[in-house]
């Protein structure tokens, strides 16, 4: 699903990613961990085609990122859905509209859109807010809308950047369960987080640790912070 070989990224003159290699198979659940500023968001940006690596080889969902032109971007984005910490939902539009937009851009027929959006809304327990504009929703509800938008299209890969960063523990756990459930249906999930609890809720997931723009090898890994906690709970 994801094949990165020795990629380098430079942001603002500094190396944001240095010689990163990462291989993720279809159906895997991967956590990206690491301290703030390590390059987690940067790596995810590479994966959804927002940032082109300077060199190396990179393929995501069969799309060669090194040769990706802007005209090829929509095709990649239709296979790869993204969820952000700050939700990125449209505040003036309703829950239904925010979710259906992902299907509309794909040219899905209206009747089918209706059915699929309703199903996702029910799964995420948003039925009562279906026609409320998103600005009237709580943070947790907005994040569920964002997740619904990424799930409704049945993507091959979901990238999530601190999706629980703004949410309380109960809600975070509920959302991680949702991701796990989705993952069992075959969608590959890559989630950046530095929340130790989140790591502990999905102990079977692989963890990839990033420090100063480099993926640290498990052997050289200094078990500390998030990793150590996860390791202990997982064990």
């Amino acid at each position, binding site marked *: 699903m994801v094949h990165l070989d020795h990629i380098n990224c430079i942001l603002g003159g500094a190396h944001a990613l240095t010689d990163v290699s990462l291989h993720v198979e279809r159906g895997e659940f991967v956590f990206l961990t690491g301290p703030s500023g390590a390059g987690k968001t940067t790596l995810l940006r590479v994966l959804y085609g927002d940032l082109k690596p300077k060199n190396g080889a990179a393929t995501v969902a069969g799309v060669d990122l090194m040769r990706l032109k802007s005209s090829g971007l929509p095709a990649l984005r239709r296979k790869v859905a993204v969820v952000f910490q700050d939700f*990125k939902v449209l505040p*003036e539009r309703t829950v239904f509209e925010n979710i259906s*937009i*992902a299907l509309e*851009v794909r040219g899905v027929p209206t009747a089918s859109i209706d059915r699929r959006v309703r199903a996702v809304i029910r799964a995420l327990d948003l039925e009562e807010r279906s026609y409320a504009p998103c600005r009237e929703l709580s943070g947790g509800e907005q994040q569920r809308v964002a997740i619904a938008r990424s799930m409704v299209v049945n993507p091959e890969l979901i990238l999530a950047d601190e999706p629980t960063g703004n949410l309380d523990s109960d809600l975070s756990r509920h959302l991680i369960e949702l991701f796990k459930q989705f993952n069992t249906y075959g969608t590959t999930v890559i989630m950046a987080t530095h929340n130790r609890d989140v790591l502990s809720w999905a102990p079977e997931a692989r963890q990839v640790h990033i420090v100063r723009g480099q993926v640290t090898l498990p052997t050289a890994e200094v078990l500390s912070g998030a990793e150590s906690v996860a390791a202990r709970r997982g064990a």
Partner: protein
Amino acid sequence: MSTSKLMLRGVADMVRHPLPQLLTLVTVCMVALLAGTGLLILHNVQAEVLKTQAQARFQVYWSASSNMTEVEGQWADLKRVPGVAEVSTFTPRAAMAELMRGLSAATPAPVAPPADNASMANATASNPNDFSWLEGENILPPTALVSFDIPAGEAPEPWMGRMYARLRGLAGVEKVTYNATQLNLATGWIALIQHAAWPALGFFALVVGLVVGNTLKLMMLARKDEVEILSLVGARPWFIRAPLFANGVVQGFAGGVLSLFCLKFLQSWLKSVLDVPPLFLKVQFLPAWQCLALVLATTCVAGLAAFIAARK
């Protein structure tokens, strides 16, 4: 989703940002009004110039002793010369009557105090406006005022020279005068107008384009999140651009039509102000094709600007 549906959505979405939309509309309308005013001025100057001076006019004088039957035959021939717009002829008698009419109009009529019939008759005898005494010794020659529309594609000057020679060569003709300087001035004006019109229109298009483009850019800044999200979920460029394009087209069309109403208002006002002595300028409104062109140009330019502004 079909293009037409996308465009409709773009138009429907206009109400989501009423203030920038309104400001764009006002700006487009103002710029179009400015261009329309320019067109109005050009149109009226051209109409005025054409009406008064763009014809070649020859005043032909025969010798006073000419045989009138012969002269009248020549007049009949003149009317058949190609390009002749009008021939006004004056027999010595008619010329005299014209002259007298002119003279009496130029002399203010005396304010006669109301009086009885006898004194009235008396006054007539000594009326300073009575030029009938001139009639007995008519020394005026037969004349003709011949107006031509200069054939298209002819340079006025050589053409007038040839026509002059032809008229001067008629039997019995003593003198021919013509309005060369006025005509040169008039054709000069028209040429100037026609040359100025294209750069002016180009300038107008540029300004409308910049204004609409920039305002839409600003509005896209307001919709930046939406564009970002659309692109994140895999929208093709056209999906993002079509609504903005429709928005620009509607803005251009509405602004153009609105500007026509403003222009009509301006024209009525100018007419009421200028159609008074001594100007008597009847300011006309633009012909239909120019109105249509104005709206069409505004619409096209605004649509194009929106299309370009919507590019990443």
